[in-house]
């Protein structure tokens, strides 16, 4: 789960990381009041889960409270990459002498959290990693012992020469470990970590991503989810315990299992179609899930035909068949449905569908070809 910058800032400050003061506003007046309290020049930043906020006009410098209010009124309600901006962060404009990058990321290969530290900060770190990897120092950390003091110091020495700055940076690097482990993060980064002309070391911008698997045991973190910043159909799907990602095509897909769901989308593309979504109904058998899945998919006006691809293992195909029949009785699906099912209780499933004057196919390729043709006819 992605956090907004202002939420990430709170997590960093809770561990004592030095950051400039600031505040979050959802109205222009609130932004004005924060700017007045901070005094001087401030930055008004859109809080939205999208990169390229600056380029989209979502980050503005304001020379005082009145200008901050003006910028806030323009940014609030803006759409950045299709996502509405409902909050802005107001922070003092820092004077910057140097910019560095400090990140901590869960690394699959070493199976450990890995620090990535670079004196080339303030820019897209992925670009630095791709073009000049030698500018990034990497350090995998043994999670049993955590970041050891000499390791923090060693990383800080790659950033600064001045001993006071090295010690300040080492402290921040150490505190970032606490941010990561105390919140079950999969990413915690400071970009940029700056020095001011006065020699201070400060974290200017923060990004934190929480491992979704932590949310069940951490209701405090789960509460940070901002559903207004997400695609409404994806919010509805999550509430219905479905994994759903909206795409731009016109073939709706309902599949059990993430790997088979991806392979089904790929096969739709292979046969010349375009998938409208990723949807995994999961392993448990539950007709209600199928009804919810159909409701969510049919809300997308782009969808011209729907494919069910169910390989029954734990999932009972008769439960899925019952769900399809129930859904079509509850509301008008409006587009043709192609059903492929095989595996657990397949014969019973076919009987249920036939009784409702529907048919089922047994072969995945045949079903995908058929649904792609139907979507094309309707388009």
């Amino acid at each position, binding site marked *: 789960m992605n956090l907004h910058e202002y939420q990430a800032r709170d997590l960093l400050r809770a561990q004592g990381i030095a950051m400039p003061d600031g505040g979050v506003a959802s109205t222009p007046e609130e932004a004005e009041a924060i700017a007045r309290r901070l005094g001087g020049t401030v930055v008004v930043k859109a809080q939205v889960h999208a990169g390229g906020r600056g380029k989209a006009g979502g980050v503005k410098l304001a020379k005082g409270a009145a200008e901050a209010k003006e910028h806030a009124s323009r940014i609030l309600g803006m759409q950045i990459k299709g996502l509405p901006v409902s909050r802005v962060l107001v922070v003092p404009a820092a004077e910057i002498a140097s910019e560095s990058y400090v990140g901590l990321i*869960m690394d*699959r*290969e070493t*199976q*450990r*959290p890995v620090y990535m530290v670079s004196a080339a900060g303030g820019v897209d770190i*992925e670009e630095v990693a*791709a073009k000049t990897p030698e500018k990034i120092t990497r350090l995998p950390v*043994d*999670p*049993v012992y955590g970041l050891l003091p000499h390791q923090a110091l060693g990383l800080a020495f790659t950033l600064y020469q001045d001993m006071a700055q090295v010690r300040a940076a080492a402290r921040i690097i150490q505190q970032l470990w606490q941010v990561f*482990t105390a919140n*079950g993060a*999969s990413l915690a980064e400071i970009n940029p970590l700056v020095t001011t002309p006065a020699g201070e070391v400060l974290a200017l911008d923060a990004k934190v991503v929480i*491992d*979704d*698997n*932590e949310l*069940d*045991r951490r209701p405090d973190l789960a509460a940070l989810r901002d559903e207004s910043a997400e695609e409404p159909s994806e919010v509805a799907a999550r509430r219905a315990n479905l*994994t759903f*990602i909206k*795409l731009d095509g016109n073939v709706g897909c309902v*599949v*059990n*299992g*993430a*790997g*088979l*769901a*991806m*392979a089904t*989308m*790929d*096969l*739709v*593309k*292979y046969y010349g179609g375009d*998938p409208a979504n*990723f949807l*995994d109904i999961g*392993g448990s058998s539950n007709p209600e899930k199928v009804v919810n899945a159909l409701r969510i998919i049919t809300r997308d006006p782009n969808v011209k035909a729907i494919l069910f691809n169910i*390989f*029954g*293992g*734990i*999932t009972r195909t008769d439960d899925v068949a019952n769900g399809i029949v129930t859904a079509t009785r509850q509301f008008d699906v409006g587009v043709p449905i192609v059903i492929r099912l*095989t*595996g*657990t209780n397949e014969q019973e499933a076919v009987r249920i569908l036939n009784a409702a004057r529907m048919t089922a196919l047994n072969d*995945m*390729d045949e079903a995908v070809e058929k649904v792609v043709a139907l979507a094309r006819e309707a388009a």
Partner: protein
Amino acid sequence: MSIFIDAGTRLVVQGITGRDGSFHARQMIAYGTQVVAGVTPGKGGQTFEGSVPVFNTVADAVRETGANTSVIYVPPSGAAGAIYEAADAGIALIVCITEGVPVLDMTRVMPYVRSRGARLIGPNCPGLITPGVAKVGIIPGNICAPGRVGLVSRSGTLTYEVVNHLTRNGIGQSTCVGIGGDPIIGTNFIDCLRAFEADAGTDAVVMMGEIGGTDEQNAAAFVKAHLTKPVVGFIAGQTAPKGRRMGHAGAIISGSSGTAEEKMEAFAAAGIAVMKRPVDVVALLRDRLG
């Protein structure tokens, strides 16, 4: 012949009295797996299905029954604890089916498992099956058939799809292993490829990968350097958008790395025959097995 599980597998089911644990314990027993014990703390002394003794701890189960393999069906909050317990009790092969185990837990679990000399498969995996001999996990036994093709996969139902094609076309399997869809897993592609290469009962390997990470690329390099047996591969997620988690915690394209295209190229460069569709597995294997 097979890898990881065989006729000598003596299985303890952790969480045997739970909803999922009891259902799948019955299925594994029906398949002929030697389920020698179950573990549910507080239910020690009971008997499951009139034949399998239930213990309070894995250590008790190992001492009383000689269990050497465990399968875990406990909720995510208890899964890491269950793995530690199995490793501590001297279990050699631990299979964790549970989905949703926090990744930070896994960073601490893995060094512990290694220090005890155990192998972990999963978490968030369907387990494994040696057709006709033993199944540990949730792979439906009826779609498998004994034979000489090894299969390793990051997913569940996509594995069933491919196994089904194999079986219907008369191509049996030595062992099918689902290694799991999480970012940190106990057994990776290379571990399975090495085992299949060494297994006299395996003639060819099918490798089912997906987007995210670099496991498939590393596996391709391993195939090129070390495998004498033919390998057929598939990558799911060619149409997946960047930066979105496609169901599996590990299936996410970050930046420009971990794409299906990159992985398919790595496969091809290593001499792995790349399937465009799951059904292609049959023709590609026939070409290579003669």
